[in-house]
């Protein structure tokens, strides 16, 4: 099928840059170590902070490092191509293609994330497991739920990044909006600090925002903090945000399509 082919090509495209991948794994691991010691200090003072124990917290830290590239918390991925192509005008070719514009780029981004999961995701997790005591799920079903949740996280992340890229239709350059979007993603995903540590009602709020789908929701499934009904609710919320964001992208693209002028020549 076409979209599978697109995803496979995208996977191979990203696998070209081995040196960059290795350097990235090194950096993720260094930060994993630093943040682990921070979390250990926090949970030494308060052993049940946020309902986690110290093992949960350290596992959270390493899984979060593993998610950075996989769900593209810092931005990047095929949506950067879209923003570039809007600026150069190449975007009209994409809009003329007899396939779904969103489907094409989503497939590409899923291929990218599969590559990053197997490299930038797996490697730091192994490093973390060698250096610290991490918690691993006991049942294969949990791994499966985790993977589904990560995939949904990628779609949510893609939806947000695509909306950001589409601002280039009006601003010509996405970098400003992108950096603000990154701020939200880093802070509200759980990458900066686990969302369970947020005090009072702010905790419920940040857990309901779309960014929680990027890091916090998958990791809570891995740690076994959401099981049964809670797990279904978590996945459901992710799926809802994914659908809402993709619909939003479709709407924005329709509006942008109308004001797009193709220069002749």
């Amino acid at each position, binding site marked *: 099928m076409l979209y599978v082919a697109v995803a496979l090509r995208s996977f191979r495209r990203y696998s070209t840059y081995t*040196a*960059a991948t290795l*350097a*990235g794994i*090194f*950096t993720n691991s*260094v*930060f994993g170590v*630093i*943040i682990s*010691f*921070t979390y*250990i*200090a*926090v949970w030494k*003072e*308060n052993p049940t*902070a*946020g309902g986690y124990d110290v093992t949960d917290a350290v596992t959270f830290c390493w899984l979060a490092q593993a998610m950075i590239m996989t769900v593209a918390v810092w931005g990047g991925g095929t949506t950067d191509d879209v923003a570039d192509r809007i600026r150069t005008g190449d975007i009209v070719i994409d809009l003329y293609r007899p396939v779904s514009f969103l489907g094409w780029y989503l497939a590409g981004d899923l291929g990218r994330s599969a590559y990053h999961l197997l490299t930038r995701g797996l490697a730091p997790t192994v490093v973390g497991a060698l250096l610290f005591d991490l918690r691993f799920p006991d049942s294969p079903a949990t791994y499966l739920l985790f993977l589904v949740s990560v995939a949904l996280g990628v779609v949510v992340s893609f939806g947000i990044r695509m909306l950001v890229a589409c601002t280039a239709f009006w*601003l*010509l*350059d996405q*970098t*400003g*909006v992108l*950096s*603000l979007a*990154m*701020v939200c993603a*880093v*802070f509200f995903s759980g990458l*900066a*600090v686990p969302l369970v*540590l*947020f*005090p009072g009602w702010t905790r419920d709020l940040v857990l309901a925002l779309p960014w929680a789908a990027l890091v916090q929701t998958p990791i809570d499934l891995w740690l076994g903090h959401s099981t049964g009904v809670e797990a279904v609710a978590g996945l459901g919320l992710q799926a809802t945000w994914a659908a809402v964001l993709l619909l939003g992208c479709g709407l924005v693209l329709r509006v942008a399509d109308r004001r797009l002028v193709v220069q002749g020549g």
Partner: protein
Amino acid sequence: MAEPLAARLAWNTRAFLMLAGMWVRVSWTYRASFLLMTLASVVITGIDFVAIMVMFTNVDSLGGFGLRDIAFLYGATAVCLGLADLVVGNVERLGRRIRLGSFDAMMVRPVGVLVQVCADEFAIRRLGRVAQGSLVLAWAITRVDVDWDPARVLVTVGMLVCGTLIFTGIFVLGASFQFLTTEGSEVANAFTYGGNAMTQYPLTIYPREVVRALTFLVPVAFVNWYPTLFVLDIPDPFGLPAALQLASPVAAVVVCALAALAWRTGVRRYRSTGS
């Protein structure tokens, strides 16, 4: 080398300001993006501190230090890294310049290559980190329990100067390796931004070996940790000599000397990529 050092320094400084000024005007062209990015720079570098504040809603101290002491450490390292990043941060693009051949063009111009590499694509939005760090540091200074005598004021000012020089040295040292590898700056990031991340917290949260490494190997502990122990009048938790608390200038000189040596060696051995 006929002209005196002072004259060369003045000329290179002027050249840097001229080139940097030009890039400031360039970034002003995409106005909406520029303003958003500066704002984002303030906010994104502030995330770390908000994260610390979130942690402190769950605990009263980390590694034996309260929020205001950590704010002092955090603000100091943020200002130092921010200033170093503003001035020499672009040096990490050296590998790309070598690959593209634009470094060769710089060699024939009558301005120091280091000045050109740093000033090219100068990003004034990086002031965001300095601004954010200054705010946190200013807040901490009004809150910490310190009897501000001249010695402590001097050490605090010296801390910012020496810390900036230490990070500057590490940036240049890390980039000098790109003369050999002509690529990948992400490993150097682990030392600059990683060093910054580590020194945001009291070093008491790390094992003894890590603290030794941060003192003698990659001396980022001298950026803020040792001067802060002096200013806050805290005996060294690891039992290291108190003299270290005033040794930041020594560390700064050593790091910068090594960086200068590495950079000069790199430039001397440079043979272009031949493309």
